[in-house]
């Protein structure tokens, strides 16, 4: 049944395309939103150049709330917001809204953790030489924590691949949608298996690439 395989391949390619789109966009927002938020949490917590307990408490609690809601529920909770932003709640684009919200909160925490790994003595040395806060953030904290950021991004992207599959359940498209349609509704176990294999390979690729980049950024172990 070559034609069936051809159509399955086409479906798979289409589904993975949608998954890439969802993970790509929400991954982008994870960096754009989560990185600054992570820095903010770290700086407010350590009272580095900016002693603001209220800002830390607000940021921290918001992040915790988002992180403690299971993604499927967050998906539903954010439906009105998605409707408001995009005018629809169906399709991969719509799924990127809750995915991005979850990704920002998730990545922000990991960025904060990576920054905590930077030796406080190094920050203190930079302060002692009269470096400005902006310079410390850009030329000390960022490069020293870059390897950590990359590892955190790897974890985030892999989680997003998983989340995006859940988004498929509520009509988000992508690999999850494919698995539900063929594996669950039509009992085509072979499709399910092929999907799983493809997912395993994808996650493996992301992890390997992430490890490579992180190792390159991390001069400590040279």
């Amino acid at each position: 049944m070559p034609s069936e395989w051809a159509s399955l391949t086409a479906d798979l390619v289409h589904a993975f395309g949608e998954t890439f789109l969802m993970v790509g966009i929400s991954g982008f927002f994870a960096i754009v939103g989560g990185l600054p938020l992570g820095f903010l949490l770290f700086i407010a917590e350590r009272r580095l150049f900016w002693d603001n307990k209220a800002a830390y408490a607000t940021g921290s609690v918001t992040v915790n709330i988002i992180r403690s809601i299971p993604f499927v529920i967050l998906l539903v909770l954010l439906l009105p917001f998605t409707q408001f932003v995009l005018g629809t709640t169906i399709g991969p684009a719509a799924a990127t809204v809750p995915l991005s919200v979850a990704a920002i909160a998730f990545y922000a925490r990991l960025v904060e953790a990576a920054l905590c790994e930077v030796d406080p003595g190094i920050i203190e040395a930079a302060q002692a030489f009269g470096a400005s806060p902006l310079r410390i953030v850009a030329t000390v904290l960022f490069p020293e924590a870059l390897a950590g950021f990359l590892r955190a991004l790897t974890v985030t992207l892999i989680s997003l691949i998983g989340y995006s599959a859940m988004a498929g359940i509520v009509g988000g498209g992508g690999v999850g949608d494919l698995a539900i349609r063929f594996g669950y509704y039509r009992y085509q176990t072979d499709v399910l298996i092929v999907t799983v294999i493809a997912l395993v390979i994808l996650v493996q690729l992301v992890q390997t690439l992430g490890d490579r980049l992180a190792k390159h950024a991390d001069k400590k172990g040279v």
Partner: protein
Amino acid sequence: MIELQNISIEFRTKDQVIRAVDQASLHIGTGEVFGIVGASGAGKSSLLRTINLLERPSAGRVRLDGRDITDLKGAALRRERQKTGLIFQHFNLMHTRTVFDNVAFALRVAGKQAAEIAAHVPEILDLVGLSDKVQVYPSQLSGGQKQRVGIARAIANHPAVLLCDEPTSALDLETSGAILELLKEINRRLGITIVLISHEMSVIKTICDRVAVMDQGRIVEQGDVYDIFARPEHPFTRQLVDRTFNLDLPERLTANLQGTLLKILFLGERAEHPLLSEAALRFGISVNILHGKIEYINNRAIGLLVALLGELQECSTHAAHITEPLTGRIAAAVDFIRQGSARVEVLHA
């Protein structure tokens, strides 16, 4: 140059207030190497860090060159900090940057141009003896080499003051000596005032002109290193100095002592005077030296001897005039030694 006036530092934790520094005042002259010595937790680091306001004092004033900098903030404070270098016990180098870039960082902060940085960094690395490690990452360096990078980074901007927080505590004895030698040379050649913290008197002795002794947040004593070694006043200082001289006698010797045990301090050229042999002859007693040490501090000698005065052996009691009992003669000998030396302590009579 550096004036700390009645500095107090308090740390507030959840349920208590820790007074890390209590009313400390210091005056450090230009070109001096000034030591701060004290036990762990005495408040040395806290006090040192007020000099570049990494720690803001709860009370008191910090003056540099007569200018009160205590209330400086923001850009003005950062400009002020560029005039002081700081080196750390654990080096605190950036792992992700080469030796060159670690040193260049301090220059970039000070707004130097790339061309100037490219020319200046190799010069400084040459000065600290690391010209062959320019493009190496810190993880590939030994502890002593890391501290040299720390020093290079700290002096890159031609600071007026170099603050050193236990710069040799993480290094072995030999490397430690080389680093102190380098600091001394920097002080001499570049005229940079150095303030150095240590918990070891031996480090202070090697490099410092003057020293302040800290105990539980207070400066209990300060002065010339030689004077502090020669005449420690505070019990804590005495303990520190004693530990440096390390004149403990083995128990075998102290168990059944016959006679009077003295600890005698000689200062300067007195250390070379044959005082003890004269006492032995004049009072017809035996002088047995059990322990001794001469330290040279800033080229002046401090000698410490532990000697036992006792009865002379039979065969040599030829001096006819010795009729007095032994105790009287020993008392007279102790007086005689006391006059001829800086200090005599009777350890056992």
